[in-house]
């Protein structure tokens, strides 16, 4: 169970209190009624689903109720930082990023552990 820092409560709380809410920094276009089909598809349907550093939204639903943003490494499940909704995409501190990437190389992947080790 993950331990998540709520930037509003300023506390580390158990994953039980939170709900994942999809990719972060997908901005709803202000002129949404006028955008093209391609732009709508980009906004609504397409997600990066990146392996590694991912920006995503969480809601402290059984706590303060606030939505916020998080930078998480999807390989190690490590939260690199969390910050309030509405703030621009925050750069991950270099040291954290370095640690995350260094770890990524050493962490098990399916190919390494489940597949043929060759």
């Amino acid at each position, binding site marked *: *169970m*993950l*331990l998540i820092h709520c930037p509003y409560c300023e506390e580390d709380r*158990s994953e039980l209190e939170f*709900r994942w*809410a999809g990719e972060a920094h997908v901005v*709803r276009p202000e002129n*949404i*009624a006028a*955008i093209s*089909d391609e732009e*709508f598809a980009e906004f*609504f349907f397409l997600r990066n689903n990146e392996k590694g550093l991912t920006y995503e*939204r969480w*809601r402290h*639903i059984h706590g303060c*109720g*606030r*939505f916020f943003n998080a930078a998480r490494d999807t390989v*190690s*499940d490590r939260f690199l930082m969390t910050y309030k*909704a*509405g703030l621009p995409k925050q750069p991950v501190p270099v040291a954290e990023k370095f640690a995350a990437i260094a*770890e990524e190389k*050493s*962490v*098990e992947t399916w190919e*390494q*552990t*489940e*597949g*043929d*080790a*060759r």
Partner: protein
Amino acid sequence: MSASSNSGAFRIKGAGRLTPARTARFTFDGNSYTALEGDTVASALLAHGVHLLGRSFKYHRPRGILTAGPEEPNALLDVSRDAARRQPNVRATVQEVFDGAKIASQNRWPSLKYDIGAVNDLLAPFFAAGFYYKTFMWPKEAWAKIYEPIIRRSAGLGVSPTEDDPDHYASRYVHCDVLIAGAGVAGLTAALSAAATGKKIILVDEQPEVGGALHYDASTTIDGQNGYDWAQATAVKLKAMPNVTVLTRTTVFGYYNHGFLGLVERVTDHVAKPSKDAPRERLWQVRTSKVILATGSIERHMVFANNDRPGIMLASAARNFLNHHGVTVGHNVGVYTAHDSAYEAAFDLKRAGVSIATIVDSRDKPGEAVLAEARKLGIDVLSGHAVVDTSGRLRINSMTVARNGNFDRRKIKVDALIVSAGWTPSVHLFSQSRGKLKFDEANQRFVPDVYAQNSVSAGACNGTDNLAELIDEAITAGGGRIALSGENRFDWTGGMIGAAEGAGPDHAVKAFVDFQHDVTAKDIRLAVREGMHSIEHIKRFTTNGMASDQGKLSNMHGLAIASEMLGRPIPQVGLTTFRAPYTPVTYGTLINHSRGELFDPARKTPMHALEEAEGAEFEDVGNWKRAWYFPKRGEDMHTSVSRECKTVRDVAGVFDASTLGKIEVVGPDAAAFLNLLYTNAWDTLKPGKCRYGIMTREDGFIYDDGVVGRLAEDRFHVTTTTGGAPRVLNHMEDYLQTEFPHLKVWLTSTTEQWAVIAVQGPQAREIIEPFVDGQDLSNEAFPHMSVAECTVMGVPARLFRVSFTGEVGYEVNVPADYGAAVWKAIWERAQSMGACLYGTETMHILRAEKGYLIVGQDTDGTVTPDDAGYGWAVSKKKTDFVGIRGLKRPDLVREGRKQLVGILTKDPKEVLEEGGQIVADPNQPKPMTMLGHVTSSYWSENLGRSIAIALVAGGRSRMGETLYVPMADKTIAVEVTDMVFFDKEGGRING
């Protein structure tokens, strides 16, 4: 007879730490035995010379006790306290004896000594690895009916209890700074060190007492004190410290993300008469900043022919039974080893007066120190030799010994054989924490390498063998400054993994690798020959390491044999992944309090008890219990519902609508916010009025619907579907917080604050009028779609004039605590006027008669407001709302989309099945072109015929068309109509 001889002929006077005077009685397969307090079932039976404890999984071979700890793969027993308290597959080496315990062997019939299943052993050539995969492939149909039931019956070991578990289980959440797993020398030292820093410490050990290896290792001293005594004194010292919690009989079974660990504490399984208030087991969920892994190591067996007979066990286990329980495993004990540690077991036995037949060492050069000691004690050592076979049907009676590479064999009589192939570091928890292992080539073992979490390994689990180094490592791990010295007699060398001499590829012998699943070295070689080249495939093909002991003894041997066959070094073959739990955990502990009523708690409305008293049948809607229908004496569902439907339209009906989701939307921008969330326009709605609203997602599909009442310029009472309430609030909060944060709006869920009593029907006004104060209910003052704050029976209320039946309707909202009282009064009056109570079934039919839609029944997440016939609810003037762009997508505006229409069967008595598919031509070849499906279908008593609603491609342009619903036994002809079946002009709603 003295007490000690009572407790078994194999007890050795003066040996062990148990008190001879404190005894307990238990039975094993019906025979009564005396044990000593502190005995495990294994030590108690061994004390009486009982070695045969069970039959193996596949071949039904006689099996005994292999280990003295939780890694035991063989000695699995059925332990019961009474009829309901019975547990199968209990490890004899873990279960402590309690007075009155009833213990039985498993997987044998008719008896342990004469087991018919043992014929499997003779048929073994047919049961090679992959047997099931290959044999039961054909015919396909036979799998579910014949093969699987037979295999399931003959597989498995114990039998599950059939009665409900009468025990209860407790749960605790704890936070700490350092959790230490394992209380052997390393764990205790680390705890002393960490405790000195003042941090909050939890020290956990699975055994009844701390000490770990000090249980058997009687020659080690710490700070000049006997090791085991030091351990107990240290535990006392630690327990006295306010910042330390010591948990014994507690297993750390899982190491999860972010310092989260699962522990199970066995509270009463060892107690003869447990208090009724005590939980059987306690689940601890611990979140810690740091973990110190001091989990030690596990001794491996030797892989040689017929290495599984009762009487063959690990050297450390024999030493444990001797030094802790005072029990010898035999009177004439053989030793087969590739590691120095077994010598120490032999020395201890010899000094206790047990004869050691011979030490057979597969190595040419055993450790010099142990060799010298053996010589001193007069023990024969055959180095460079192997045990190549054993004999004895129900217990070993001889071992066959040969020089390595030589064919000359000789038999040596023994009544027990203790073995050691060396030690495997217990890296299970480290691996569960997603740490990465490295292979220590010199010592042929995997040890921790890269840590994924804030943890550190200390001691044997880290591959640290030397006592002084181990103590230093543990002190450093704890982070404190303490001094401690330890001394042991011998530093051990040696160890091997894989098949021993005489069990190699050229020998067709049964040399067991995995005892619990009956996997032999031969099986693993066969798997490789048949093309399994990944260790994960080999594991699944042979089931090596897949039993409940998770290969604690077998993994390394299996890996080495596979590696040899594949001609690839061990790190390249790879280790299988360790998964939680470390040892089996009972369902009772995991489920814990979530049983019975707490398994999935029901939500009940304030009027629930009154409805129950009126004979209501309830249905589940989400977690809610909703009154479904109110049968009178002798009525079945159909007659009850038909009566309710008719009464509502003829007189009136009273309905509990409390489960409707309710959200209070408040603030200066409330109307602007609703404008963005619903397709309708809300700024035009006057206070005191209601409007039916549709909510779409960004993709344009219907998400929810409901009536919204405007109480004031800045206050709306929003209702949602019963099931949709939580997600609608989440959806609203999401937009308010992240997309429209500039709007000044506050959202509050009020679903449970209001009890809602709906009164519907021609007499509805007359029923409620006497109770209402502060609002003129006349049509002029309070027409359809009005809302007012007033009082009902003196209780502050929100009164809605709304209808989900097409009749005059009111929904009385009163604070939940008054719901029952107001309901009672309204129902009394309604009843006297000939009205009825009605439930959700009648509500569904009445709304269908009017063509009102139910989101989630008539819509499925791919239906737009226009598809549903509610295009009018989408504002054409608004420049933005959630869904505005999605609704313009090419597929959502194309011709021929599925639309909701009414469907009438040609035969009015025929009631369609919901979900029935609709086609234009029932005689077309299969697969037929489906035009759509029936979403709602009922018998309408008011219309004297069946009615249905369906989603049909191009439905609204097909009015009057005949379509068909093909069923299994017939084809039903239907006509497409509009969705309003009753009171098409809609006059009744205005009264």
